[in-house]
């Protein structure tokens, strides 16, 4: 496969008068309407006096016939932060949505702050009855949380529905590794299934075979069905060195049954640019179809601090 880079779509620094949208546009995911596509992303206000961030989720609407034409930006975050002591008190990032009858359902990563490690995450659930402009939680707690073999950092959720079954692709923390005296998370891609979107059965296995040295973190498991195959685009990096190399990569795997995945990173057909906004990393992919073309949103340098860009598939995905 081969992806043709089309350029950067959205730059958060260009947005004025939104205190909660200063930097970052992370974890892009789409909801397709008749005339436009709504792209959800997560963003941050300036850090607090301790240098700590919170994250919000918001959207931009793009003209379906010219994806570089931003026709609308959300007036406020699509969901507020969680209450005192809740799993999502300090962030709602990333967000993944699905149309379910007249409603839009959202699955998002909720962030809380911890003492021995910087944060912990679990997956929350919320519904929208206004076409995805605003979402309300069903309850104050998470819909997918920790369990005996998934002890922490449950997040990076992508919601999909295939053959009337809901699939949640997400990551779970395997351990915190200490690199230069700081804890860095080691994450692996996991899956859960549900008949109602609320009660989930965890598959309890890593879906994607590790790279050679088994020290890789994986995130953003974006699954796309096309040509009778399930394709997964995801993000991976090495916790031991990514602070120095500033590198994260896009990986690829395919499956016929959503359980057994064949990893083929070498087929991904997209790489960093020699200069510019995506010269250090390309990361956190989201693949979607519009007007019979297959596109990928992805993040560039500093994990989307300066926004996300678009690439178009040339030829076939098979």
């Amino acid at each position, binding site marked *: 496969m081969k992806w043709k880079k089309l350029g950067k779509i959205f730059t958060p620094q260009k947005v004025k008068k939104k205190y909660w949208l200063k930097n970052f546009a992370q974890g892009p995911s789409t909801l397709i309407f008749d005339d436009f596509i709504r792209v959800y992303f997560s963003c941050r206000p300036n850090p607090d006096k301790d240098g700590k961030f919170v994250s919000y989720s918001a959207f931009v609407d793009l003209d379906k016939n010219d994806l570089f034409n931003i026709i609308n930006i959300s007036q406020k975050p699509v969901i507020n932060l969680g209450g005192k*002591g809740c799993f999502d008190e300090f962030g709602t990032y990333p967000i993944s949505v699905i149309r379910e009858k007249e409603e839009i359902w959202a699955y998002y990563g909720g962030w*809380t702050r*911890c003492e021995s490690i910087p944060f912990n995450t679990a997956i929350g659930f919320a519904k929208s009855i206004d076409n995805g402009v605003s979402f309300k939680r069903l309850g104050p*707690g998470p819909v997918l949380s920790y*369990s005996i073999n998934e*002890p*922490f950092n449950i997040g990076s959720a992508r919601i999909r529905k295939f053959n009337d079954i809901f699939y949640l692709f997400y990551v779970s923390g395997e351990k915190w590794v200490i690199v230069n005296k700081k804890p860095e998370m080691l994450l692996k891609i996991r899956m859960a299934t549900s008949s109602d979107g609320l009660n989930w059965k965890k598959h309890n296995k890593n879906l994607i075979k590790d790279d050679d040295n088994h020290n890789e973190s994986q995130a953003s498991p974006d699954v796309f069905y096309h040509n009778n195959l399930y394709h997964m685009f995801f993000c991976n990096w090495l916790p031991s060195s990514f602070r120095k190399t500033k590198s994260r990569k896009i990986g690829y795997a395919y499956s016929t049954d959503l359980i057994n995945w064949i990893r083929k990173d070498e087929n991904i057909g997209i790489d960093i640019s020699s200069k510019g906004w995506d010269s250090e990393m390309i990361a956190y992919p989201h693949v979607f179809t519009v007007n019979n073309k297959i596109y990928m949103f992805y993040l560039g340098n500093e994990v989307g601090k300066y926004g996300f860009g678009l690439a178009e598939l040339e030829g076939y995905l098979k």
Partner: protein
Amino acid sequence: MKWRKIGQIFKFDESPFKNRFISHAQSPQAIVFDDFVRVYFSTRKKDISGKFLSYVQYVDYNKKISKIINFSNDEVIKLGKIGCFDEHGIFPFSPLQYKGKIFAYTNGWTRRVSVDIDSSIGFAISDDNGETFNKLGDGPILTSSLFEPFLIGDPFVKVYNKKYYMFYIFGEKWIVDSKVKNPERVYKIGYAISNDGLNWEKRNKKIINDILGEDECQALPTIIKIRNQYHMFFCYRQAIGFRETKDKGYRIGHAYSDNLKDWIRNDSSCSIKLSKDGWDSKMQCYPNVFECNDKIYLLYNGNKFGENGFGLAILDY
């Protein structure tokens, strides 16, 4: 039903534990062997930052519970790895004897930034008659969920008619109040059911009525079947001012049920009163009921949440 107090049976500062730990013997919970009664409890160490960690230890009594015959010398269960739900402590620790094996349901806790802590329930198995326990995994078996957002803890498990019943507590809210420095928690007693003791179905229901208003905190349920009725003992308190004000501190409550689902609160019929002076004159908390040689006993903590140990009462009925 009337409890007759036997008195404080364990004093931390007169025990060998005072050389290894700094204070506390909280939430005593017993299992009965052929020759002795083992009482697990949580005690404390300080970490390098000066904050405390809670560790599980035990003390063994003769069957009359009149004499200490043995103490734990080693680590009973390890605290969790970095980032895990039980990294900073296990308190309480609830043993279960079933089909010749000894299991433990643990309340693991970890420190948070905007609130003091969060907790979840873990599971461990002993291969050496309850001297040490190994966890089945790094994560919890029961934790936060859509309608129980935080502070899942205080497990107590019994098997009735081949079904596992877990009574536990869940957090309802953290109160931010100008009168107190840190947010204060409110938690209630709920229950879950399981066929294997590992996979639990929460009933998402508060089962004990409040008598102190909606901010009543309910903790540490313990259950015993007497004749054909189930009896639950627990402790309860006000949400704010409970540390320093005697009238707002922990008391032991009681409820009964015919089916383990519907509970009638009846503190007055089975209450155990504060003593006029001494170790349980200001507070009574963390009850554990058990049967030994056809007698029913109640272990509990007194003043200062069990800073200096626990006591015993026996049921006259």
